[in-house]
């Protein structure tokens, strides 16, 4: 499987179209990574996502000016769900006030990863692992970002990596 295409900070629409055609098949192992989450894990997440999209379909859904969750946001979030590694617990699906969908893995106070999935094919994350804090952004075209895999490996150190 080829590496994902290099990204500009703001991908041209042609690149975005290409990116949409490059997707990770639900059930195959990429080098050094995990088997994607099984469908019985993905489907509840997809259901949560659909419910959130319905709850947040209009602007100002939170009474503080939140942007509505768009079809584009759902599309990329679905790809993210399809790319989730099978070795870790399922995250909670949430709505971000920027109109994006977000995911949180939580393993107790001070051990969590929060990821906002940007419709422009990026993920923005913040992590806390004990006293360590980390944050950043990464491209996402369908393969679960290596950066996030590393964070999950630290949050859940006893989970086995399935290849």
């Amino acid at each position: 499987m080829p590496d994902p295409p290099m990204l500009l900070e703001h991908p041209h629409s042609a690149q975005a179209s290409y990116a949409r055609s490059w997707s990770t098949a639900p059930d195959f192992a990429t080098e050094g990574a995990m088997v994607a989450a099984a469908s019985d894990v993905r489907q509840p997440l997809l259901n949560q996502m659909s419910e959130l999209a319905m709850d947040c379909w209009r602007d100002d859904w939170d009474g503080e000016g939140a942007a509505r969750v768009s079809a584009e946001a759902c599309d990329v979030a679905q790809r993210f769900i399809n790319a989730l590694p099978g070795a870790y617990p399922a995250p909670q699906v949430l709505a971000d006030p920027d109109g994006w969908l977000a995911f949180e893995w939580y393993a107790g106070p001070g051990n969590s990863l929060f990821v906002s999935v940007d419709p422009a094919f990026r993920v923005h994350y913040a992590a806390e692992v004990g006293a360590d804090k980390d944050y950043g952004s990464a491209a996402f075209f369908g393969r679960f970002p290596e950066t996030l895999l590393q964070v999950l490996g630290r949050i859940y150190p006893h989970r086995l990596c399935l290849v």
Partner: protein
Amino acid sequence: MPGLSEIPVGDEEELARFILKRDELRQDGTLRPLAFMAHKHVDLSVTRHRGFTVKRLWGAGRCAAVKRKLPLLGRADILAATVRLAGLDVKPAEGPGLGPKNHANIVKYPSEKSEQVHYAQILAGLARFLPVSMG
């Protein structure tokens, strides 16, 4: 005598962020970064405890809930000093009579998304959640 909006927010002041969305709260009672996520204006509305009784503070929360058409689940309390130590700041709402009484804003959130989430995560981890049932 100056109005509250003209009095700077002291380090010792406690601030309340009313929790109206279930996604802001985890099942174990801890707060998610969403509770302190700034967006749009890159600042975050909070209520100063200053001069308020507990009853009046919760009343402000109920008003906020009615205005936003969401249920009041509780509030997240955090010291202004904690916000400043994290790298942000707290300013009283501009101008007398603008917005709710005792209104202030957490400001200086960065414009970059992951950094916003980072600060929200820090504040959520340091704030104390009080469910509305505590009165």
